[in-house]
């Protein structure tokens, strides 16, 4: 489950945010009558289609896997936990319809109509993200459920949807996906720059997504900070694991890197005195709760704590690196009114895409592993939620999924490379033809033509 969720989350940034980038590009193209921008928008929409296909499939798998792996959790709390997914299900429906219309409408609808119909996509994607995050937040800070004397569950819908964690999870994650999509798309054209491509096409395709991502990076810094601080109240055990704090104390140091063992000793790592206390409460005297203050069966164990801690550090570290790159970008943009031209800038920008994905993944590990041993924080342990299918079966299933997912990833990447090669050839041939469905994943005519 962790594996498939972790895989699916990689698809989300492009799935939700790429339509927005594509629409921005199409908007630019329409407003400025810029054929190059339209061509880029069109090519991105092809990727969007493939991406959506893969996302639709992995998303469907996920909904089944909840049942295959954690039937007892859904049986107990489905009426509250499922609410977000009910919204997501419908949003996904809407998205599927409009993506089809958008992809197939390029040549058939008037440009304005096409653009306006496309505008449905970003809100639909966000609504879906909202639903899933509402469900995830509910697992982190369950609310809106009361047990009746007869053992039945009573659900207060609003309280169950808008739980405490949703406020920060929603903004943190929504910004994260735009950030990631922006950096990921831009990184491809950063590579193109490094390979010597310096035309209008490259500048647009790099500049627009990169600027969007760069503008969000500082915002994310603040939101991330607020989220972490909220955790000290909402999920203190997770926070303690993130900072590998063992003993409840004031003047708590911030440990960067390092590992904790099961008796609470921290090895390696750089400890900055009192910094954690200062970050939490803006004063060295702030008391920070440690892992040892939780019962042993209610806190992450040493391995889980270390995983939480290291991925948290990785996320913060990469986020900070992105911020530096952002400062560089805007400094040049504002002072010289152009994109940076330093070799190193593009080398780093090329890495930013992978970096952004790594950041999303480590953020996800932080929040999920940090909640252990709970599946619903404070209310249900993972062990009580799982199916009683035999471990052999589950491992076999996991193995099969692993192979299948690897195959999908392989095809997805080869496909993208192939498309990029084909587009490059088209550009080099100076073809003015805006391709008509060639290479579209669902478009039929490819076989006969080639």
């Amino acid at each position, binding site marked *: 489950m962790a594996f498939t969720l972790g895989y699916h989350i990689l698809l989300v940034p492009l799935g939700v945010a790429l339509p927005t980038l594509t629409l921005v590009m199409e908007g630019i193209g329409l407003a400025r009558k810029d054929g190059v921008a339209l061509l880029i928008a069109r090519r991105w929409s092809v990727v969007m289609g493939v991406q959506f296909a893969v996302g*639709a499939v992995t998303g469907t798998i996920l909904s089944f896997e909840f*049942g295959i792996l954690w039937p007892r959790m859904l049986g107990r709390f489905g009426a509250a936990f499922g609410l977000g*997914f009910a919204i997501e299900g419908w949003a996904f429906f809407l998205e599927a319809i409009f993506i089809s219309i958008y992809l197939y409408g390029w040549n058939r609808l008037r440009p304005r109509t096409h653009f306006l119909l496309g505008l449905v996509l970003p809100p639909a994607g966000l609504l879906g993200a909202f639903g899933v995050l509402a469900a995830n937040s509910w697992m982190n800070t369950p609310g809106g459920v009361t047990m009746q004397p007869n053992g039945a569950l009573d659900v207060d819908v609003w309280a169950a949807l808008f739980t405490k964690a949703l406020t920060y999870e929603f903004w943190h994650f929504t910004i994260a996906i735009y950030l990631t999509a922006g950096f990921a798309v831009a990184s491809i054209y950063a590579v193109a720059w490094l390979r010597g491509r310096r035309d209008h096409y490259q500048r647009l395709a790099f500049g627009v997504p990169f600027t969007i991502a760069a503008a969000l990076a500082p915002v994310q810094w603040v939101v991330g900070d607020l989220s972490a601080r909220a955790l000290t109240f909402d999920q203190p055990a997770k926070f303690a694991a993130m900072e590998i704090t063992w003993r409840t104390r004031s003047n708590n140091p911030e440990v960067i890197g390092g590992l904790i063992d099961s008796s609470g000793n921290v090895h390696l790592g750089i400890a900055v005195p009192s910094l954690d206390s200062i970050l939490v409460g803006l004063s060295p005297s702030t008391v920070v709760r440690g892992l040892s203050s939780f019962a042993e069966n209610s806190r992450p164990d040493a391995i889980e704590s270390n995983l939480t801690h290291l991925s948290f550090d990785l996320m913060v570290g990469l986020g900070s690196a992105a911020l530096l790159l952002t400062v560089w970008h805007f400094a040049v943009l504002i002072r010289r009114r152009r994109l940076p031209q330093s070799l190193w800038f593009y080398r780093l920008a090329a890495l930013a895409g992978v970096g952004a994905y790594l950041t999303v993944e480590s953020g996800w590990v932080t929040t999920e592993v940090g909640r252990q041993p709970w599946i619903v924080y404070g209310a249900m342990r993972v062990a009580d939620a799982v199916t009683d299918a035999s471990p052999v079966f589950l491992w076999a299933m996991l193995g099969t999924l692993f192979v299948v997912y690897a195959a999908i990833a392989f*095809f997805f990447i080869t496909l993208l490379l192939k498309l990029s090669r084909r587009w490059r050839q088209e550009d080099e041939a100076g073809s003015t033809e805006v391709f008509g469905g060639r290479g579209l994943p669902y478009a039929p005519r490819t076989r006969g033509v080639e």
Partner: protein
Amino acid sequence: MNVTLAYVIAAMMLLAVTAYSTAGGVDFGAGIWDLLAGRDERGRRARELIDRSMAPVWEVNNVWLVLAIVLCWTGFPTLFESVFLSLYPLFSVALIGLILRGAFFAFRHVAENPRDHQIADYVFGISSVVTPIFFAMSLGAIASGRVGAPGVSAWDASVSPMSIAFGLVSVCATALSGATFLIGDARREQAAELVEYFRTKTLIAAGALIVVGTGALAAIAVERRELLTSMASFPAVLLVAVVMIVTPAVAFLVWRRWFAWYRVLTVAAVGSLVAAWGVAQSPYLLPGRLTIDQAAAPLGTEVLLTVVAGVVVLVIGPSIGFLLYLDQKSALEPQGS
């Protein structure tokens, strides 16, 4: 109030399953014919037609499935728990089939050398057969009353005469749906040869559905006679009658080459087939064990589910209509050819 809403949600769930069976059925059916098309020139043309007709709408169908699942776990959590505790083997296979199918349908369009293409074709085709079988088997298993029964192992619950019968019926039903819709697409392209090709397939599939369907009734009679009894009484009997009259009617129309109404009637037949089971089984979600109002979620949840569904139907109804309109008008086909 609580009970009424529970029935509304159960009806939506059945509607989603029915929609998936009919709309998805057309899709799976096309996949089956794709697998059986052979590698010769005519097979290649048939396969191209299949590609063209599946292209714009196929991914919308998966959504019905997600909806059914989500409605189930939110609206009837305990049903979801029992079903998945018992039937996880079936769902696991269906799922893997589903992934392979979707992925390889997309990928075969970009596979450049013929060998990759052929592999993608086979994976797509085989998973188009396997997936509906295993989904339908799970419905059969639920109908058989084995789900949630004490002392019945997951494997015993999953594999029974009824689940196998439901699985086989689904292959024939999807093959029929696929074939009739492909006739329509071939006619729109004025490909007379392909019209004839899929006319034969339609007749074969309709015949198979009638034979296998009768067999399935026998399986129900052996394993769960109560279900057969309620299928034979009002209101389910109306739906059963629709299936029994309309299926031969489709075959007759297509045989006489009266190409009118045959697609609508196919949808009616397959839809009624699924709905007949659902209606006959109600008020039970799990026959003899769990009724709709026993399994219902708390009122607040039900209200939200109903309201969200209502709002969205207002938005989605017109937009899916628009998509189908554009699809049928061929307006969505890329111009490049």
